[in-house]
């Protein structure tokens, strides 16, 4: 496909309780095949999607949080976490799983895909979108 667009996915909801987090991840993974410029934003309760040590077995749900670790292999390495949302929920970056990718322009060094952003930076990210999908 000739034209490349910037797809921004905003994940706002907790991983369980609604289907949005799971169905967002499905779109992101399928969309990776289209080789677009992809940015993922996690804000509001969406920051819980990346928390460590999820164990939803007790509510009869599958733990799909391990799948996020594969994003780097799909060349999805622009992941933005809203600092304010972490603060509001008493979370820090250490409560989230590490997401990394191998940088082909830098001898395949492993680098973090995660960027903490403030609201102003978030606004710029949203502004950069050709296609904006809110989940």
């Amino acid at each position: 496909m000739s034209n490349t667009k910037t797809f921004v996915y905003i994940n706002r909801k907790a991983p369980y309780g609604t289907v949005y987090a799971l169905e967002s991840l499905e779109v992101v993974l399928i969309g990776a095949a289209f080789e677009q410029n992809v940015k993922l934003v996690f804000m509001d309760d969406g920051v819980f999607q990346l928390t460590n040590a999820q164990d939803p077995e007790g509510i009869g749900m599958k733990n799909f949080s391990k799948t996020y670790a594969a994003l780097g292999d799909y060349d999805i390495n622009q992941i933005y976490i809203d600092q304010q949302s972490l603060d509001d929920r008493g979370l820090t970056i250490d409560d989230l799983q590490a997401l990394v990718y191998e940088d082909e322009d830098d001898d395949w060094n492993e680098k973090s895909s995660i960027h903490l952003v403030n609201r102003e930076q978030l606004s710029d990210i949203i502004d950069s979108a050709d296609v904006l999908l809110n989940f």
Partner: protein
Amino acid sequence: MKFTIQVNTGPYTHQASDSAYQFTRAAIDAGHDIHRIFFYHDGVNNATEYSVPPQDDRNLQQLWSSLAAEHNLDMIVCVAAAQRRGILDEGESKKNGKSGVNIAPGFQISGLGQLIEGGVQSDRLVVFGD
């Protein structure tokens, strides 16, 4: 302008499907192109032929089906979302050993790639429902 429309909520509980339908019709009337309409999440429930609302209420499935027939619209229902919610075409019904087929005329079951492709190919992707 070329639009892809995404519908994320089912009919009747929320207005989103009505709004998406009205937007689509208005866009066509104004001379715009509708590249695709993509039904995701509970939006797949718009595609069931088994819905029978009271006669004095609008029938959203029929409205969508008629619009598609009239304007040759590409209306796609996400396969994974549809299977979770019991929207089946002949192939999926057989494959999963079910007794009925409920996908309405004009709707086709396909994959999420169709949503992304819609976003790539269209000038605007407009999303209805949350």
